[in-house]
Protein backbone atom coordinates (compact mmCIF):
# COMPACT_ATOMS: atom_id res chain seq x y z
CA UNK A 1 0.00 0.00 0.00
CA UNK A 2 1.44 3.38 -0.94
CA UNK A 3 1.93 5.65 2.07
CA UNK A 4 0.04 8.57 0.58
CA UNK A 5 -3.00 6.36 0.06
CA UNK A 6 -2.95 5.21 3.69
CA UNK A 7 -2.62 8.84 4.82
CA UNK A 8 -5.70 9.74 2.81
CA UNK A 9 -7.59 6.88 4.43
CA UNK A 10 -6.65 8.30 7.86
CA UNK A 11 -7.78 11.80 6.89
CA UNK A 12 -11.06 10.42 5.52
CA UNK A 13 -11.70 8.44 8.74
CA UNK A 14 -11.22 11.59 10.83
CA UNK A 15 -13.55 13.58 8.54
CA UNK A 16 -16.23 10.87 8.78
CA UNK A 17 -16.14 11.00 12.60
CA UNK A 18 -16.30 14.81 12.63
CA UNK A 19 -19.16 14.62 10.11
CA UNK A 20 -21.05 12.15 12.30
CA UNK A 21 -20.48 14.43 15.28
CA UNK A 22 -21.76 17.39 13.27
CA UNK A 23 -24.92 15.56 12.14
CA UNK A 24 -25.62 14.14 15.60
CA UNK A 25 -25.47 17.65 17.05
CA UNK A 26 -27.42 19.27 14.21
CA UNK A 27 -30.31 16.79 14.46
CA UNK A 28 -30.11 16.95 18.25
CA UNK A 29 -29.78 13.15 18.44
CA UNK A 30 -27.98 13.69 21.73
CA UNK A 31 -28.80 16.34 24.31
CA UNK A 32 -26.53 19.35 23.51
CA UNK A 33 -25.59 19.44 27.17
CA UNK A 34 -23.93 16.04 26.75
CA UNK A 35 -22.60 16.53 23.24
CA UNK A 36 -22.13 20.10 22.00
CA UNK A 37 -21.57 20.11 18.22
CA UNK A 38 -18.37 21.09 16.42
CA UNK A 39 -19.80 24.51 15.57
CA UNK A 40 -20.59 25.23 19.22
CA UNK A 41 -17.12 24.13 20.27
CA UNK A 42 -15.55 26.42 17.64
CA UNK A 43 -17.70 29.31 18.85
CA UNK A 44 -16.61 28.60 22.41
CA UNK A 45 -12.99 28.60 21.23
CA UNK A 46 -13.42 32.06 19.64
CA UNK A 47 -15.11 33.31 22.77
CA UNK A 48 -12.35 31.98 25.03
CA UNK A 49 -9.69 33.52 22.81
CA UNK A 50 -11.45 36.90 23.05
CA UNK A 51 -12.55 36.84 26.67
CA UNK A 52 -10.53 34.08 28.26
CA UNK A 53 -11.77 31.43 30.67
CA UNK A 54 -12.04 32.66 34.29
CA UNK A 55 -10.09 35.83 33.55
CA UNK A 56 -7.25 33.92 31.87
CA UNK A 57 -6.96 33.88 28.07
CA UNK A 58 -7.07 30.54 26.26
CA UNK A 59 -3.51 31.07 24.98
CA UNK A 60 -2.35 31.52 28.54
CA UNK A 61 -3.99 28.23 29.59
CA UNK A 62 -2.24 26.46 26.72
CA UNK A 63 1.08 28.16 27.44
CA UNK A 64 0.95 27.35 31.17
CA UNK A 65 0.21 23.68 30.54
CA UNK A 66 2.84 23.28 27.83
CA UNK A 67 5.42 25.09 29.97
CA UNK A 68 4.68 22.89 33.00
CA UNK A 69 4.89 19.68 30.98
CA UNK A 70 7.96 20.65 28.94
CA UNK A 71 9.94 22.00 31.88
CA UNK A 72 9.35 18.83 33.92
CA UNK A 73 10.06 16.74 30.83
CA UNK A 74 13.41 18.44 30.15
CA UNK A 75 14.57 18.11 33.73
CA UNK A 76 13.45 14.46 33.68
CA UNK A 77 15.40 13.84 30.46
CA UNK A 78 18.53 15.62 31.70
CA UNK A 79 18.56 13.62 34.94
CA UNK A 80 16.94 10.40 33.77
CA UNK A 81 19.13 9.67 30.75
CA UNK A 82 22.49 9.74 32.60
CA UNK A 83 21.13 7.80 35.56
CA UNK A 84 19.56 5.21 33.27
CA UNK A 85 22.75 4.88 31.22
CA UNK A 86 24.74 4.41 34.42
CA UNK A 87 22.28 1.76 35.63
CA UNK A 88 22.72 -0.03 32.33
CA UNK A 89 26.51 -0.04 32.66
CA UNK A 90 26.99 -0.64 36.38
CA UNK A 91 25.36 -3.74 37.91
CA UNK A 92 25.96 -2.38 41.44
CA UNK A 93 24.34 0.98 40.72
CA UNK A 94 21.50 -0.90 39.05
CA UNK A 95 21.05 -3.23 42.03
CA UNK A 96 20.77 -0.21 44.35
CA UNK A 97 18.25 1.81 42.33
CA UNK A 98 16.25 -0.89 40.58
CA UNK A 99 13.91 -1.84 43.46
CA UNK A 100 12.82 1.80 43.91
CA UNK A 101 12.37 2.39 40.21
CA UNK A 102 10.41 -0.83 39.75
CA UNK A 103 8.18 0.00 42.74
CA UNK A 104 7.44 3.59 41.73
CA UNK A 105 7.08 3.14 37.98
CA UNK A 106 3.85 1.12 37.85
CA UNK A 107 2.38 3.04 40.80
CA UNK A 108 -0.55 5.22 39.63
CA UNK A 109 0.81 8.72 40.20
CA UNK A 110 -2.62 9.96 41.31
CA UNK A 111 -2.06 7.98 44.50
CA UNK A 112 0.87 10.24 45.28
CA UNK A 113 -1.15 13.46 45.14
CA UNK A 114 -2.04 13.60 48.87
CA UNK A 115 1.59 13.06 49.89
CA UNK A 116 2.93 15.47 47.30
CA UNK A 117 0.53 18.15 48.55
CA UNK A 118 1.54 17.58 52.16
CA UNK A 119 5.22 17.72 51.25
CA UNK A 120 5.32 20.42 48.59
CA UNK A 121 2.12 22.41 49.08
CA UNK A 122 -0.34 23.32 46.36
CA UNK A 123 1.95 25.51 44.27
CA UNK A 124 3.95 24.83 41.13
CA UNK A 125 6.45 22.58 42.91
CA UNK A 126 4.01 19.75 43.54
CA UNK A 127 2.78 19.87 39.94
CA UNK A 128 6.37 19.72 38.76
CA UNK A 129 7.14 16.79 41.08
CA UNK A 130 4.24 14.72 39.74
CA UNK A 131 5.01 15.24 36.05
CA UNK A 132 8.74 14.93 36.65
CA UNK A 133 8.44 11.69 38.57
CA UNK A 134 6.35 9.85 36.01
CA UNK A 135 8.50 11.04 33.08
CA UNK A 136 11.78 10.44 34.88
CA UNK A 137 10.94 6.85 35.80
CA UNK A 138 9.95 5.96 32.25
CA UNK A 139 13.14 7.48 30.84
CA UNK A 140 15.41 5.84 33.43
CA UNK A 141 14.01 2.38 32.78
CA UNK A 142 14.26 2.66 29.02
CA UNK A 143 17.77 4.18 29.09
CA UNK A 144 18.99 1.33 31.29
CA UNK A 145 17.41 -1.31 29.10
CA UNK A 146 18.73 0.42 25.96
CA UNK A 147 22.28 0.13 27.27
CA UNK A 148 21.83 -3.46 28.40
CA UNK A 149 20.49 -4.54 25.03
CA UNK A 150 23.52 -3.34 23.04
CA UNK A 151 24.61 -6.46 21.14
CA UNK A 152 27.61 -8.16 22.76
CA UNK A 153 29.09 -8.85 19.32
CA UNK A 154 29.22 -5.15 18.47
CA UNK A 155 31.03 -4.43 21.74
CA UNK A 156 33.54 -7.19 20.98
CA UNK A 157 34.05 -5.92 17.45
CA UNK A 158 34.85 -2.47 18.86
CA UNK A 159 37.19 -3.91 21.50
CA UNK A 160 39.13 -5.80 18.85
CA UNK A 161 39.51 -2.46 17.06
CA UNK A 162 41.24 -1.10 20.15
CA UNK A 163 38.70 1.15 21.91
CA UNK A 164 39.26 2.01 25.58
CA UNK A 165 36.42 2.14 28.11
CA UNK A 166 35.45 5.76 27.49
CA UNK A 167 35.57 5.34 23.73
CA UNK A 168 33.49 2.18 23.97
CA UNK A 169 30.80 4.09 25.83
CA UNK A 170 30.93 7.28 23.77
CA UNK A 171 31.37 5.78 20.29
CA UNK A 172 29.65 2.40 20.51
CA UNK A 173 27.27 1.98 23.45
CA UNK A 174 25.72 5.45 23.31
CA UNK A 175 24.92 5.45 19.57
CA UNK A 176 23.76 1.82 19.82
CA UNK A 177 21.37 2.75 22.61
CA UNK A 178 20.09 5.88 20.86
CA UNK A 179 17.12 4.35 18.99
CA UNK A 180 15.70 2.70 22.12
CA UNK A 181 16.53 5.77 24.17
CA UNK A 182 14.43 7.89 21.82
CA UNK A 183 11.56 5.46 22.13
CA UNK A 184 11.78 5.83 25.91
CA UNK A 185 11.84 9.62 25.68
CA UNK A 186 8.82 9.44 23.40
CA UNK A 187 6.85 7.30 25.83
CA UNK A 188 8.07 9.61 28.62
CA UNK A 189 6.73 12.78 27.07
CA UNK A 190 3.39 11.05 26.47
CA UNK A 191 3.16 9.99 30.09
CA UNK A 192 4.25 13.46 31.25
CA UNK A 193 1.48 15.07 29.26
CA UNK A 194 -1.02 12.58 30.69
CA UNK A 195 0.11 13.30 34.23
CA UNK A 196 -0.49 17.00 33.57
CA UNK A 197 -4.22 16.59 34.19
CA UNK A 198 -3.49 14.91 37.51
CA UNK A 199 -1.04 17.67 38.39
CA UNK A 200 -3.49 20.43 37.52
CA UNK A 201 -6.12 18.80 39.72
CA UNK A 202 -4.05 20.07 42.63
CA UNK A 203 -5.50 23.50 43.27
CA UNK A 204 -4.54 25.39 40.17
CA UNK A 205 -6.05 28.51 38.60
CA UNK A 206 -4.84 28.07 35.07
CA UNK A 207 -3.83 25.40 32.57
CA UNK A 208 -5.78 23.21 30.17
CA UNK A 209 -6.21 20.38 32.68
CA UNK A 210 -7.54 22.79 35.26
CA UNK A 211 -9.82 24.39 32.66
CA UNK A 212 -11.41 21.01 31.82
CA UNK A 213 -11.93 20.06 35.44
CA UNK A 214 -13.25 23.48 36.39
CA UNK A 215 -15.63 23.64 33.42
CA UNK A 216 -17.03 20.21 34.23
CA UNK A 217 -18.25 21.40 37.61
CA UNK A 218 -20.28 24.14 35.84
CA UNK A 219 -21.53 21.67 33.20
CA UNK A 220 -19.75 23.68 30.50
CA UNK A 221 -19.36 20.61 28.26
CA UNK A 222 -18.40 22.85 25.33
CA UNK A 223 -15.33 24.06 27.26
CA UNK A 224 -14.61 20.49 28.35
CA UNK A 225 -14.74 19.29 24.73
CA UNK A 226 -12.52 22.14 23.60
CA UNK A 227 -10.02 21.35 26.36
CA UNK A 228 -9.98 17.68 25.42
CA UNK A 229 -9.43 18.51 21.75
CA UNK A 230 -6.56 20.84 22.65
CA UNK A 231 -4.95 18.36 25.06
CA UNK A 232 -5.10 15.64 22.44
CA UNK A 233 -3.78 17.83 19.64
CA UNK A 234 -0.89 19.21 21.69
CA UNK A 235 -0.01 15.72 22.89
CA UNK A 236 0.06 14.59 19.28
CA UNK A 237 2.27 17.53 18.24
CA UNK A 238 4.74 16.84 21.08
CA UNK A 239 4.95 13.22 19.97
CA UNK A 240 5.42 14.31 16.37
CA UNK A 241 8.29 16.59 17.41
CA UNK A 242 10.08 13.70 19.13
CA UNK A 243 9.48 11.31 16.23
CA UNK A 244 10.84 13.87 13.76
CA UNK A 245 13.96 14.47 15.86
CA UNK A 246 14.36 10.72 16.16
CA UNK A 247 14.15 10.26 12.41
CA UNK A 248 16.82 12.92 11.89
CA UNK A 249 19.19 11.71 14.59
CA UNK A 250 18.70 7.95 14.29
CA UNK A 251 18.36 7.69 10.52
CA UNK A 252 19.59 4.07 10.54
CA UNK A 253 16.83 2.88 12.88
CA UNK A 254 14.85 -0.10 11.72
CA UNK A 255 16.89 -0.56 8.55
CA UNK A 256 18.91 -3.66 7.68
Amino acid sequence: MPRLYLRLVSVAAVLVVIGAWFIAAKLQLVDPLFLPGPIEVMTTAEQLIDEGYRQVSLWMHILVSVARALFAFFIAAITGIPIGLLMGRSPIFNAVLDPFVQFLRPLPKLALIPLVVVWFGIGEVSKFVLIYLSTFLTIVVSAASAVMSVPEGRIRAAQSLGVNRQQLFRHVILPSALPELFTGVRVGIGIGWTTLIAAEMIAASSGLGWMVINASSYLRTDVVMLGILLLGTIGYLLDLAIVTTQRLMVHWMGKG
Partner: protein
Amino acid sequence: MDDAVPATQATVALRNVSKSFVDRKRGRETIALSDVTLEIGKSEFVCILGPSGCGKSTILNLVAGFEKPSSGAVLIDNRPITAPDRSRGMVFQQPLLFPWLNIIDNITFGPRMAGAPPQQYAPQAERYVQLMGLTGFEKHYPYELSGGMQQRVALARAWISEPELFLMDEPFGALDAQTRLMMQELLLRVWERSRTTVLFVTHDIDEALFLADRIFIMTARPGRIKENLVVDFERPRNYETIIFDERYITLKQRVLQVIRGETLLAMKLEVE
Protein backbone atom coordinates in the same frame (compact mmCIF):
# COMPACT_ATOMS: atom_id res chain seq x y z
CA MET B 1 48.99 -3.73 -8.03
CA ASP B 2 52.15 -5.00 -6.38
CA ASP B 3 52.18 -2.63 -3.44
CA ALA B 4 52.68 -5.02 -0.54
CA VAL B 5 50.29 -4.63 2.36
CA PRO B 6 52.64 -3.91 5.26
CA ALA B 7 52.28 -6.02 8.36
CA THR B 8 54.08 -7.71 11.19
CA GLN B 9 53.16 -11.27 12.11
CA ALA B 10 52.61 -12.86 15.46
CA THR B 11 52.90 -16.42 16.68
CA VAL B 12 50.16 -18.06 18.71
CA ALA B 13 50.46 -20.84 21.25
CA LEU B 14 47.89 -22.63 23.39
CA ARG B 15 49.43 -24.77 26.12
CA ASN B 16 47.16 -27.34 27.81
CA VAL B 17 44.20 -24.99 27.61
CA SER B 18 40.89 -26.03 29.13
CA LYS B 19 37.75 -23.96 29.34
CA SER B 20 34.49 -24.80 31.01
CA PHE B 21 31.25 -22.90 31.42
CA VAL B 22 28.46 -23.34 33.89
CA ASP B 23 25.40 -24.33 31.93
CA ARG B 24 22.58 -22.57 33.78
CA LYS B 25 19.78 -24.53 32.13
CA ARG B 26 21.14 -27.92 33.09
CA GLY B 27 22.84 -26.65 36.19
CA ARG B 28 26.09 -28.41 35.41
CA GLU B 29 29.48 -27.61 33.98
CA THR B 30 30.03 -27.86 30.26
CA ILE B 31 33.59 -28.47 29.18
CA ALA B 32 34.10 -26.49 25.99
CA LEU B 33 37.81 -27.19 25.61
CA SER B 34 39.86 -29.92 27.17
CA ASP B 35 43.65 -29.83 27.22
CA VAL B 36 44.15 -28.11 23.88
CA THR B 37 47.74 -27.56 22.81
CA LEU B 38 48.61 -25.97 19.48
CA GLU B 39 51.22 -23.74 17.90
CA ILE B 40 50.79 -21.35 15.01
CA GLY B 41 53.88 -19.91 13.35
CA LYS B 42 54.45 -16.47 11.86
CA SER B 43 52.53 -15.89 8.63
CA GLU B 44 50.71 -19.18 8.88
CA PHE B 45 47.12 -19.48 7.68
CA VAL B 46 45.52 -21.99 10.02
CA CYS B 47 41.95 -23.26 9.87
CA ILE B 48 40.12 -24.87 12.75
CA LEU B 49 37.54 -27.28 11.43
CA GLY B 50 34.94 -29.08 13.47
CA PRO B 51 31.26 -29.78 14.12
CA SER B 52 29.13 -27.08 15.73
CA GLY B 53 29.51 -26.89 19.47
CA CYS B 54 33.04 -28.28 19.44
CA GLY B 55 34.58 -25.19 20.98
CA LYS B 56 36.07 -23.67 17.81
CA SER B 57 34.79 -20.22 18.63
CA THR B 58 35.93 -20.59 22.23
CA ILE B 59 39.52 -20.87 20.99
CA LEU B 60 39.07 -17.62 19.03
CA ASN B 61 37.50 -15.85 22.00
CA LEU B 62 40.42 -16.92 24.19
CA VAL B 63 43.03 -15.72 21.70
CA ALA B 64 41.11 -12.48 21.16
CA GLY B 65 41.12 -11.89 24.91
CA PHE B 66 37.32 -11.84 25.35
CA GLU B 67 37.51 -14.85 27.64
CA LYS B 68 40.08 -16.34 29.99
CA PRO B 69 41.07 -20.01 30.04
CA SER B 70 40.01 -22.10 33.06
CA SER B 71 43.50 -23.59 33.02
CA GLY B 72 46.55 -23.53 30.77
CA ALA B 73 48.13 -20.62 28.91
CA VAL B 74 47.24 -18.68 25.76
CA LEU B 75 50.30 -16.89 24.39
CA ILE B 76 50.95 -14.40 21.61
CA ASP B 77 54.65 -14.09 20.79
CA ASN B 78 55.22 -15.98 24.07
CA ARG B 79 53.36 -13.36 26.13
CA PRO B 80 50.07 -14.15 27.87
CA ILE B 81 46.96 -12.38 26.63
CA THR B 82 45.27 -10.00 29.08
CA ALA B 83 42.60 -8.10 27.13
CA PRO B 84 41.39 -7.55 23.57
CA ASP B 85 43.46 -5.07 21.56
CA ARG B 86 43.95 -3.87 18.04
CA SER B 87 47.01 -6.03 17.34
CA ARG B 88 44.55 -8.90 16.97
CA GLY B 89 41.99 -8.11 14.30
CA MET B 90 38.72 -9.95 14.47
CA VAL B 91 36.14 -10.71 11.79
CA PHE B 92 32.92 -12.36 12.88
CA GLN B 93 30.21 -14.33 11.12
CA GLN B 94 28.07 -11.20 11.14
CA PRO B 95 29.68 -8.02 9.75
CA LEU B 96 28.86 -6.15 13.01
CA LEU B 97 29.38 -2.78 11.34
CA PHE B 98 28.37 0.39 13.17
CA PRO B 99 25.04 1.27 11.53
CA TRP B 100 25.31 4.98 12.37
CA LEU B 101 28.60 5.35 10.47
CA ASN B 102 29.01 5.36 6.70
CA ILE B 103 31.36 2.91 5.00
CA ILE B 104 34.47 5.07 5.12
CA ASP B 105 33.90 5.98 8.78
CA ASN B 106 33.40 2.30 9.59
CA ILE B 107 36.68 1.41 7.89
CA THR B 108 38.62 4.18 9.63
CA PHE B 109 37.09 3.48 13.07
CA GLY B 110 40.22 1.79 14.47
CA PRO B 111 42.75 4.46 13.40
CA ARG B 112 40.41 7.26 14.50
CA MET B 113 40.03 5.72 17.97
CA ALA B 114 43.81 5.35 18.15
CA GLY B 115 44.10 9.10 17.47
CA ALA B 116 45.81 8.76 14.09
CA PRO B 117 45.79 11.94 11.94
CA PRO B 118 43.43 11.91 8.91
CA GLN B 119 46.33 12.46 6.47
CA GLN B 120 47.69 9.10 7.65
CA TYR B 121 44.58 6.95 7.56
CA ALA B 122 42.72 8.56 4.65
CA PRO B 123 45.05 7.19 1.91
CA GLN B 124 45.11 3.79 3.64
CA ALA B 125 41.33 3.73 3.77
CA GLU B 126 41.20 4.62 0.09
CA ARG B 127 43.47 1.64 -0.66
CA TYR B 128 41.32 -0.81 1.26
CA VAL B 129 38.21 0.59 -0.40
CA GLN B 130 39.83 -0.27 -3.74
CA LEU B 131 41.17 -3.67 -2.62
CA MET B 132 37.77 -4.71 -1.30
CA GLY B 133 35.88 -3.43 -4.33
CA LEU B 134 33.94 -0.80 -2.42
CA THR B 135 34.70 2.17 -4.66
CA GLY B 136 31.69 4.44 -4.98
CA PHE B 137 30.14 3.20 -1.74
CA GLU B 138 32.26 5.27 0.66
CA LYS B 139 29.36 7.50 1.72
CA HIS B 140 26.76 4.74 1.85
CA TYR B 141 25.47 3.33 5.11
CA PRO B 142 25.77 -0.37 6.02
CA TYR B 143 22.04 -1.03 5.61
CA GLU B 144 22.32 0.02 1.96
CA LEU B 145 24.87 -2.75 1.22
CA SER B 146 24.49 -6.47 0.55
CA GLY B 147 25.72 -9.03 3.10
CA GLY B 148 28.84 -9.78 1.05
CA MET B 149 29.73 -6.11 0.73
CA GLN B 150 29.17 -5.54 4.44
CA GLN B 151 31.56 -8.38 5.19
CA ARG B 152 34.17 -6.78 2.89
CA VAL B 153 33.79 -3.57 4.88
CA ALA B 154 34.33 -5.60 8.07
CA LEU B 155 37.51 -7.08 6.54
CA ALA B 156 38.78 -3.65 5.54
CA ARG B 157 37.93 -2.26 8.98
CA ALA B 158 40.01 -4.97 10.66
CA TRP B 159 42.82 -4.90 8.10
CA ILE B 160 43.46 -1.14 8.18
CA SER B 161 44.82 -1.41 11.73
CA GLU B 162 47.48 -3.78 10.36
CA PRO B 163 47.02 -6.45 13.06
CA GLU B 164 49.71 -9.06 13.67
CA LEU B 165 47.08 -11.73 13.85
CA PHE B 166 43.68 -12.21 12.25
CA LEU B 167 40.96 -14.10 14.05
CA MET B 168 38.09 -15.08 11.78
CA ASP B 169 34.98 -16.76 13.12
CA GLU B 170 33.19 -18.31 10.13
CA PRO B 171 33.30 -14.94 8.38
CA PHE B 172 31.71 -16.22 5.17
CA GLY B 173 29.30 -18.66 6.82
CA ALA B 174 26.25 -16.43 6.32
CA LEU B 175 26.90 -15.74 2.63
CA ASP B 176 25.53 -17.58 -0.40
CA ALA B 177 27.85 -20.04 -2.19
CA GLN B 178 28.94 -17.77 -5.06
CA THR B 179 29.61 -14.78 -2.83
CA ARG B 180 31.49 -17.02 -0.41
CA LEU B 181 33.88 -18.24 -3.12
CA MET B 182 34.49 -14.67 -4.28
CA MET B 183 35.20 -13.60 -0.72
CA GLN B 184 37.61 -16.51 -0.18
CA GLU B 185 39.53 -15.54 -3.31
CA LEU B 186 39.58 -11.90 -2.27
CA LEU B 187 40.80 -12.83 1.21
CA LEU B 188 43.62 -14.94 -0.25
CA ARG B 189 44.67 -12.22 -2.73
CA VAL B 190 45.00 -9.64 0.02
CA TRP B 191 46.48 -12.10 2.51
CA GLU B 192 49.16 -13.26 0.07
CA ARG B 193 50.50 -9.71 0.19
CA SER B 194 50.26 -9.06 3.92
CA ARG B 195 51.03 -12.60 5.16
CA THR B 196 49.41 -11.75 8.46
CA THR B 197 49.08 -14.79 10.73
CA VAL B 198 45.48 -16.05 10.44
CA LEU B 199 43.40 -18.27 12.68
CA PHE B 200 40.25 -19.06 10.75
CA VAL B 201 37.33 -21.05 12.16
CA THR B 202 35.01 -22.86 9.79
CA HIS B 203 32.87 -25.96 9.37
CA ASP B 204 33.24 -25.85 5.57
CA ILE B 205 35.81 -28.46 4.47
CA ASP B 206 36.38 -26.97 1.00
CA GLU B 207 36.90 -23.55 2.51
CA ALA B 208 39.53 -24.90 4.91
CA LEU B 209 41.34 -26.82 2.15
CA PHE B 210 41.34 -23.82 -0.18
CA LEU B 211 42.59 -21.30 2.38
CA ALA B 212 44.76 -23.01 4.95
CA ASP B 213 48.41 -24.00 5.32
CA ARG B 214 47.34 -26.23 8.14
CA ILE B 215 44.02 -27.55 9.42
CA PHE B 216 43.25 -28.51 12.98
CA ILE B 217 40.30 -30.86 13.15
CA MET B 218 38.45 -30.73 16.46
CA THR B 219 36.44 -33.32 18.33
CA ALA B 220 32.99 -32.75 19.77
CA ARG B 221 32.43 -31.95 23.45
CA PRO B 222 34.79 -31.78 25.15
CA GLY B 223 36.68 -29.94 22.42
CA ARG B 224 40.06 -31.42 21.64
CA ILE B 225 42.40 -31.17 18.68
CA LYS B 226 42.09 -34.52 16.94
CA GLU B 227 44.13 -34.06 13.81
CA ASN B 228 46.73 -31.64 12.48
CA LEU B 229 46.73 -31.73 8.66
CA VAL B 230 49.25 -29.95 6.47
CA VAL B 231 47.77 -28.51 3.28
CA ASP B 232 50.69 -27.92 0.93
CA PHE B 233 49.19 -26.52 -2.27
CA GLU B 234 51.41 -23.89 -3.86
CA ARG B 235 50.40 -20.26 -3.54
CA PRO B 236 48.95 -18.24 -5.13
CA ARG B 237 46.12 -20.77 -5.20
CA ASN B 238 43.44 -21.10 -7.78
CA TYR B 239 40.20 -22.80 -6.77
CA GLU B 240 39.53 -24.33 -10.19
CA THR B 241 42.98 -26.01 -10.29
CA ILE B 242 43.28 -27.27 -6.75
CA ILE B 243 39.90 -28.99 -6.59
CA PHE B 244 41.11 -31.33 -9.37
CA ASP B 245 44.46 -31.94 -7.70
CA GLU B 246 44.87 -35.51 -6.45
CA ARG B 247 46.22 -34.29 -3.12
CA TYR B 248 42.99 -32.34 -2.69
CA ILE B 249 40.91 -35.48 -3.04
CA THR B 250 43.11 -37.46 -0.64
CA LEU B 251 43.02 -34.67 1.93
CA LYS B 252 39.28 -34.22 1.62
CA GLN B 253 38.70 -37.94 2.10
CA ARG B 254 40.84 -37.88 5.20
CA VAL B 255 38.99 -34.88 6.62
CA LEU B 256 35.62 -36.40 5.85
CA GLN B 257 36.52 -39.62 7.66
CA VAL B 258 37.55 -37.77 10.79
CA ILE B 259 34.67 -35.28 10.67
CA ARG B 260 32.00 -37.91 10.04
CA GLY B 261 32.87 -39.81 13.19
CA GLU B 262 32.91 -36.57 15.16
CA THR B 263 29.62 -35.29 13.78
CA LEU B 264 27.88 -38.53 14.69
CA LEU B 265 29.28 -38.24 18.17
CA ALA B 266 28.15 -34.62 18.41
CA MET B 267 24.62 -35.53 17.31
CA LYS B 268 24.50 -38.25 19.94
CA LEU B 269 25.51 -35.70 22.57
CA GLU B 270 22.80 -33.30 21.36
CA VAL B 271 20.16 -36.03 21.76
CA GLU B 272 21.25 -36.63 25.32
